[in-house]
């Protein structure tokens, strides 16, 4: 079960709350919107629409039910669906080399979470996970390339996975 966030901040009934919510979450919302829509202009539109809908429905936000982050992501998810439908009606070419994701939206959200967590862990840890897991290269080869013992590559894989877990928990992941 994936849940996003646990940083409840209260209802979005005041402009100050919106500013705080924007400062805390706009970066992540935008990152996910770009990944899903593959278009920075549409992603900006999605984030803007998300905060507008959040403002309109501010009274309905209850921090006891879920975090503000979860709520904003749920709104963004709907916005992305709406924008995706609108785009399907008038096809556009992806800009800036960013390809829109083609997987279902919940899969895209899960993927984005792991990618965001990968960005947040240390370079050494990310590197060994990319080389050994994603590229499937032998430990001995990676160790030689990095100029470290093979055991170090293995321990970096372990500490890398631990670091990922910590970051995902910070992002609201629960088993």
């Amino acid at each position: 079960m994936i849940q996003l966030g646990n940083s409840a901040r209260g209802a979005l009934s005041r402009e100050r709350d919106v500013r705080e919510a924007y400062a805390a979450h706009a970066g992540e919302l935008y990152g996910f919107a770009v990944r899903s829509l593959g278009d920075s202009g549409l992603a900006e539109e999605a984030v803007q629409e998300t905060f507008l809908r959040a403002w309109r429905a501010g009274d309905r936000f209850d921090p006891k039910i879920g975090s503000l982050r979860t709520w904003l992501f749920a709104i963004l998810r709907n916005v992305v669906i709406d924008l995706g439908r609108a785009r399907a009606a008038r096809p556009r070419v992806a800009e800036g080399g960013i390809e829109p994701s083609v997987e279902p939206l919940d899969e895209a959200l899960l993927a984005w979470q792991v990618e965001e967590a990968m960005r947040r862990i240390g370079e050494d840890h990310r590197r060994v996970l990319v080389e050994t897991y994603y590229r499937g290269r032998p430990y001995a080869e990676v160790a030689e390339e990095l100029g470290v013992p093979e055991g170090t590559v293995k321990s970096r894989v372990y500490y890398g996975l631990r670091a990922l877990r910590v970051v995902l928990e910070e992002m609201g992941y629960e088993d």
Partner: protein
Amino acid sequence: MKTRNECREWRELLGAHALGQLEGEERVGLEAHLEGCLECRAELAALEPVVGMLPHADPARFGPAPQPPPELGRRVAATIEEEKRRVVRRRRRAFGGLALGGAAAAIAAAVLAIFVFQGGSEDPTRHVKFASLPNGISIYATLEPHAYGTEIRMYVKGVPSGTLCRVTLRGPNGATYSAGTFRYRWGDDSNAVLSSALDLSRTRAIVVRAGNRTFVGRT
């Protein structure tokens, strides 16, 4: 009896094991250790959900995340401000309509009429005209009174992209009050939202200096 160091050595292999990449003696040895070590088994169990999530990610996307442009925050604030204004207008219209429709009850109508009269079916926002603009340049400004002074919404089009625009309000005796700066970007159709300490009732003109050109709008 296991020692802490022994556990640590095996534990550092748990990542490779969880990824299914441990072979030979190391694998056999670790599995034997896990049989007898509750802590290491718990640690392995904690890694497994993370390992289960890895296939969903695309390593080509591990690079720096795209950042929202700095003006997006301003646009979000302006959108919400506009929404607030729209809601107020709608409420005022509903309230005005109620006053007209409620004429049958003379006393109630009288009370409502006072509210409508005082409460402002009149829009307090002032729209500024900029006279004699060069061809191709459009400038609009709306000014709205606040307790702190005046809120200014600027819309500029037709000047080179990136032009720095400096806005000041001019008071009754020629005193000027800064309202801040913004930059015009090509393709950006949003309003710049600025503010000044000068009360709207005392504002006589708005001066926009766009690059090296100056435009004056009378209120």
